[in-house]
């Protein structure tokens, strides 16, 4: 299988980039999660620490109130209660920092407060502990004595003096406590910051990496993650003032990444989306997806159901099976990606105005694995119609190239005028064939078989003539195509019964020749410019003029044909042409004279002329001579040409045998040599043992007779001495003077 450029891109670029991007995104996600947790804990810890001085204040305030109440001999129930709560809470907090324990944050969240281990923080904490012990003793005592009277309490009620002392002490200590708390809080904040920064570093890098990769490979799945990360970072920035600047810059990076993602998702010429194991398409997809799939509201729909409408049944079955593989985490992703059946799949969208819109889509898939399972699959889809069509054109043209090259090589050596007349001839013969075939009416149902056979023979004549002319010009492509066509026709002619169905191969072969002719004409057009300088440089003006004359063309063609045929058949020949005589006869009917001479020359070389050793053994010169000379004008006013070869001539015995088997001569008859010779003009007659490109299949003589006698009103004579020579005299009406 040929690697396609797009496949190479996928493998060498998109896949690694996609993997990297996915890895970065997951990294970002991981760090963001850690960061989130860190930020939350840091924030709550700071909140809790902040409560220390608040409770300290509360304790001082409560004791002052109690003192006042005692002084005014009023019950101090509320104040005592508040003092008790504050003291309990503060004690709890200090102990939590000392030992680490679950604590309730100011916003009411239970969380695990870690014991302080940092040296500087511990120093503050120790100070706070000292202060707190003093405060706590007094607070407890005040609660015990000023609180609700307990039965059997041995506690000594606080006097105004002792209360005053406690109040003074607590108030003073509370300031120290606040000071220490502030230092403690700052230190905690610093620690939190460090921890955040430690997480932010890799995350920032990953965000950068992801952003860059996103530009190369926009992935829809990033969207969610980036959005989440951005929310987290916004909170972070708001809540941790100290790291705000840093976070803002990061948030900016994230926003930029998101904006880029947004932009990409809006403008990318690919459909990007996620599907889950059921094939349901995720909420975010690139805008292009709706255009590619020609449907709105794609999010939440099942990709398989969408594809079912677009794909052929067989492809859809493959696709279903493939999706199962994609989500089967036991299969190696690499293997699964290799067998993607949807790399350039033809889809057929129903056309609102009827019919179908035919496109090619290229899907690529990437797994998103979470906890060892394939949670979702990232899908990218592109409209690859243009590529596919280009590739198809390329393939077609490659397939065609050899043939075109053949034709090209064939025609460069052919003079433009000759080529021109060949094109006309082929066009004419193909039209004849099509006209013959298109006569739809049959005279009667009974005569259909005969009518069809006649048509087939007409077609055969045209193809045969075409073949001869192609051979004369060494246009091997045409020669071969015509030869194959002939074989087909021959096979059909040998069938006892013919029906219209039998002609299906005939019309297809005709279409093939027509396509070749189209190629030839196209190439001929291209060659016009190419040829001119060669002709101008290499050919003298008078030679050029000579080339242009029909007789010269025919002569050249004939020499070429004989040389080729002789070479192929291992015979040695020379050709003598009386150019003047040829010119006299051919000037008025070049095509006819050319066709006839071609057929005669082909037959001579194939059937009449013996191989050189045979000739030498028979006392003849090894080199056979073919000649064309003029004949005297007849009394009827016909002008004539003689075509002669000094070969074995007509094999009358072979002709007779063949004629008898073809029913042309009765086995009991006693035909004259002339009667036997006449049989060679019968349609379908052949003496060729091995039909080949050069040999006629008997139809050559049929053409000659039809064209010269029936169509042109001329005559043909055969003069033959078997074993010595064979001469055809061709007579044509003289041009109207």
């Amino acid at each position, binding site marked *: 299988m040929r690697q396609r450029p797009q496949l190479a891109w996928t493998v060498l670029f998109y896949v690694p980039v996609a993997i990297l991007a996915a890895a970065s995104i997951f990294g970002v996600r991981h760090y963001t999660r850690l960061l989130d947790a860190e930020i939350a804990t840091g924030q709550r810890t700071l909140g809790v620490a902040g409560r220390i001085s608040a409770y300290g204040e509360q304790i001082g305030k409560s004791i002052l109130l109690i003192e006042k109440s005692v002084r005014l001999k009023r019950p101090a129930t509320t104040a005592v209660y508040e003092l008790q709560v504050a003291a309990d809470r503060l004690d709890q907090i200090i102990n939590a920092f000392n030992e680490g324990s679950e604590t309730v944050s100011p916003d009411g969240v239970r969380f695990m407060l870690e014991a302080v281990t940092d040296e500087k923080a511990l120093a503050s904490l120790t100070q706070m502990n000292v202060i707190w012990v003093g405060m706590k003793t007094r607070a407890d005592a005040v609660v015990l004595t000023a609180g609700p009277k307990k039965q059997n309490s041995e506690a000594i009620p606080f006097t105004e003096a002792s209360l005053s002392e406690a109040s003074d002490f607590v108030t003073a200590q509370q300031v120290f406590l606040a000071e220490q708390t502030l230092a403690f809080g700052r230190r905690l904040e610093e620690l939190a910051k460090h921890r955040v920064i430690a997480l932010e570093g890799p995350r920032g890098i990953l965000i950068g990496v992801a952003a860059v990769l996103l530009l190369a490979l926009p992935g829809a799945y990033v969207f969610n993650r980036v959005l989440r990360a951005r929310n987290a970072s916004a909170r972070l920035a708001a809540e941790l003032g100290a790291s705000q600047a840093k976070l803002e810059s990061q948030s900016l990076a994230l926003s930029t990444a998101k904006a880029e993602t947004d932009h990409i998702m809006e403008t990318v010429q690919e459909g990007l989306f996620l599907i889950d194991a059921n094939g349901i398409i995720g909420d975010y997809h690139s805008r292009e997806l709706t255009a590619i799939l020609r449907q709105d509201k794609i999010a939440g729909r099942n990709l398989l159901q969408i594809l079912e409408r677009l794909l052929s*049944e067989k492809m859809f079955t493959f696709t279903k099976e493939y999706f199962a593989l994609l989500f089967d985490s036991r299969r190696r992703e690499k293997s699964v990606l290799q067998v993607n059946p949807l790399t350039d799949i033809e889809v057929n969208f129903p056309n609102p105005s009827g019919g179908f819109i035919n496109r090619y889509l290229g899907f690529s898939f990437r797994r998103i694995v979470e906890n060892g399972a394939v949670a979702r699959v990232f899908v990218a889809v592109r409209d690859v119609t243009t590529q596919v069509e280009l590739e198809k054109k390329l393939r077609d043209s490659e397939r065609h190239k050899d043939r075109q090259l053949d034709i090209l090589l064939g025609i460069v050596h052919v003079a433009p005028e000759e080529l021109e007349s060949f094109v006309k001839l082929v066009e004419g013969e193909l039209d004849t064939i099509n006209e013959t075939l298109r006569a739809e009416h049959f005279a009667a149902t009974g005569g259909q078989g005969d009518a069809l056979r006649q048509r087939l023979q007409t077609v055969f004549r045209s193809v045969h003539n075409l073949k001869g002319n192609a051979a004369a010009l060494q246009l091997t492509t045409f020669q071969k195509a015509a030869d194959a066509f002939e074989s087909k026709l021959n096979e059909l002619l040998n069938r006892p019964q013919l029906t219209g169905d039998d002609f299906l191969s005939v019309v297809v072969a005709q279409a093939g020749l027509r396509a070749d002719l189209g190629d030839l004409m196209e190439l001929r057009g291209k060659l016009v410019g190419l040829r001119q300088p060669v002709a101008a440089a290499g050919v003298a003006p008078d030679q050029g003029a000579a080339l242009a004359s029909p007789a010269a063309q025919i002569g050249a063609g004939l020499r070429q044909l004989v040389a080729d045929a002789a070479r192929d058949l291992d015979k040695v020949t020379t050709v003598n042409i009386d150019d003047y005589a040829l010119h006299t006869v051919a000037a008025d009917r070049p095509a006819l004279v050319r066709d006839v001479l071609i057929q005669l020359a082909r037959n001579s070389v194939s059937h009449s002329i013996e191989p050189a050793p045979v000739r030498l053994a028979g006392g003849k010169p090894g080199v056979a001579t073919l000649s064309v000379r003029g004949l005297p004008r007849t009394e009827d006013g016909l002008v004539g040409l003689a075509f002669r070869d000094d070969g074995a001539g007509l094999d009358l015995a072979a002709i007779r045998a063949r004629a008898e088997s073809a029913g042309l001569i009765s086995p009991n008859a006693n035909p004259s040599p002339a009667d036997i010779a006449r049989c060679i003009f019968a349609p379908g007659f052949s003496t060729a043992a091995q039909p080949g490109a050069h040999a006629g299949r008997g139809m050559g003589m049929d053409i000659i007779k039809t064209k010269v006698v029936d169509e042109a009103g001329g005559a043909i004579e055969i003069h033959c001495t078997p074993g010595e020579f064979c001469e055809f005299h061709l007579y044509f009406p003289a041009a109207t003077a």
Partner: protein
Amino acid sequence: MKLLIVDDSLIMRRAIERSAGRSRFSEIHTATNGLLAVEMFARHRPDVVTMDITMPDMDGLSAIDLILKQNPAANILVVSALADKGTAIEAVKRGALGFLLKPVTAESVHNAIENILSD
């Protein structure tokens, strides 16, 4: 008994209508595409549906899905020119009870409908 004939070709609708047998069906409705077929099915609840496949707007296979969603017991006979095995299998997989290949004759239509109703 009610019959719903779904085919975009007037010739086919009329041919099926004649072949199905007036005596068998007291009501015969027609639809020219899948969308209308689904609508007509909901409105008339026919006992038998003959369904073409190649139709504009919505093809017969999709219409089969939607009709069977309305009534899983619907009797659907597919009458289509699509001669590949896959199409027939697909139609049956989707819940059609029979598949009749065009060109049809009065007899083949009649037999196919009787076949469906006798099950």
